[in-house]
């Protein structure tokens, strides 16, 4: 009985061919990690689609139609920019949904990959570098953001909550809003050993932002002294820009400020994450 040959290559100290030290570019490497997440996602995608559809239906139904009727009857449309509450609310919820998707993908999955399943270590033992692992995970997060935000936009249109074709531009903006959360949070999550700080992040970060960053009511309704706090949150920028696109009231200068702010946060998150991933995976 002879074992099947599972060993074929003869070792060589000298790189056999010229360029043996060359490795694929960063995008190719990141795509390998992205595909890992895709294979993983094959088992769970159905459930995530259900909730991506159900969430906007519930929120737009209850708050947009139910609560909205009450608000509209109150005759305060001027403060909402002259539109119904549903039309006002929907783009805000779109940005908030992006935030929620980003937080979900960038907290427990990161800690799980390094602490519980240790799958990051499997990738790190293969040719991928820590930064490739980080970028690949971000790519997958981006894909989830695109999916969820696109579904949200479809539901939103079905509710008749869209005023302008510019709302299509709200898709990349919402995705960017998500990345402005995902990149820094993944950079942070990889440094954790326990998930306790995530609960705090949700309780003291996400929920207050969700409530006070202009999703449900204009920030101008808040006392003047607290408004600057809302303006520095990434969610406010995402909400403001998505809303102005959905209502067709966006102006170039304001839009550029919002995009620039969100891009800067995402870029900082990526720069920091490249370091924190390295520190964690290369002990």
């Amino acid at each position, binding site marked *: 009985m002879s*074992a*099947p*040959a*599972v*060993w*074929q*290559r*003869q*070792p*060589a*100290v*000298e*790189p056999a061919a010229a360029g*043996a*030290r*060359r*490795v*694929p570019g960063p995008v*190719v*490497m990141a795509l*390998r*990690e992205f*595909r*890992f997440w895709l*294979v*993983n996602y094959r*088992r769970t995608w159905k459930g995530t689609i259900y909730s991506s559809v159900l969430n906007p239906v519930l929120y737009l139904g209850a708050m947009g139609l139910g609560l909205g009727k009450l608000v509209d009857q109150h005759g305060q449309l001027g403060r909402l920019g002259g539109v119904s509450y549903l039309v006002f609310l929907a783009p805000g919820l779109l940005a908030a949904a992006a935030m929620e998707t980003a937080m979900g993908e960038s907290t427990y999955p990161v800690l799980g990959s390094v602490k519980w*399943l*240790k*799958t990051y*270590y*499997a*990738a*790190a*033992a*293969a*040719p*991928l*570098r820590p930064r490739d692992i980080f970028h690949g995970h971000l790519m997958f997060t981006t894909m989830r953001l695109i999916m969820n935000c696109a579904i949200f936009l479809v539901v939103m249109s079905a509710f008749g909550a869209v005023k302008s074709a510019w709302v299509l531009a709200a898709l990349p903006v919402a995705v960017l809003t998500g990345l402005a959360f995902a990149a820094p949070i993944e950079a942070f999550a990889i440094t954790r050993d326990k998930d306790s700080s995530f609960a705090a992040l949700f309780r003291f970060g996400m929920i207050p932002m969700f409530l006070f960053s202009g999703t449900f009511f204009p920030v101008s309704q808040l006392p003047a002294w607290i408004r600057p706090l809302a303006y520095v949150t990434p969610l406010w920028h995402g909400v403001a820009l998505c809303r102005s696109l959905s209502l067709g009231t966006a102006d170039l200068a304001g839009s550029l400020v919002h995009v620039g702010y969100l891009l800067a946060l995402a870029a900082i998150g990526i720069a920091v994450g490249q370091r924190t991933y390295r520190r964690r*995976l*290369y*002990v």
Partner: protein
Amino acid sequence: MPAPDILVRAHELTKRFGQFTAVDAISFELRQGEAFGFLGPNGAGKSSTMRMIGCVSPPTGGELSILGMDPVADGPAIRSRLGVVPQEDTLDVELTVRENLLIYGRYFGLPRAVIADRTDRLLDFVQLTERGNDQVEPLSGGMKRRLTIARSLINDPEILLLDEPTTGLDPQARHVVWDRLFRLKQQGVTLILTTHYMDEAEQLCDRLVVMDGGKIAAEGSPRELIDQYSSAEVLELRFHPSEHDQAAEKLRDVPAERMEVLADRVLLYVPDGDAALAAAGDLGLEPLTSLVRRSTLEDVFLRLTGRRLED
């Protein structure tokens, strides 16, 4: 230029974690086609060394060259030619056996067809063909270990790194893994293995270093190490606890190369165990049990460090 058949060369390789020195200026060379082992107790620095060779842990000092390249500058290029079985399994237990191999093969940029072909061969090799489409989670520890070994071979590596391949497995599962590793060895695989089991080291390693406290205490083939640091035979005597110390004292009159007095036994390192046992009888000693055996790496370790390998 390094000699053509030296795949890994370490010179005064050092790893510190803060103030703590886990690997203390060790030097060794791995030659093509050999099975090279690190034998040492927990905390000796074996995994730290393996992680440096695996290019996932930058050395703090000394030199390390793998396949003629620098682990820090050329990590991805080196890792693409290594197979790694880490001390702790890093399988994705939520996926199936085959999916684990698929994902890992993709990490190396292998085409799907190549992965599929190798997956069939490798699952056959580690005797997991029937479990190919099962989830990994419920597999036994031994099966997971075999899957990790199959996974480490997916890229047809030039060096295989095995960090405690059978620790935590029951004896039967260990033997299955040993059998597979032995076949790899027969196929000419170059492998580096760490273990704290002396029988594993004896069976699998052509050459090994004994490691303790981050340092290399000795180096050679199992046979050489035993010849150099131990005697041909060992006489193990066990006495009634009340007589233990007294008996040990008396035994000094039996001619022996060395004597070790353990808590529950006395070991006499002698050329001829039976003769030594007779000599002990002549001194009027009546051990509860006696055993004559060949020297093992355990004896080498005891001699070198004054401690036992496995506790």
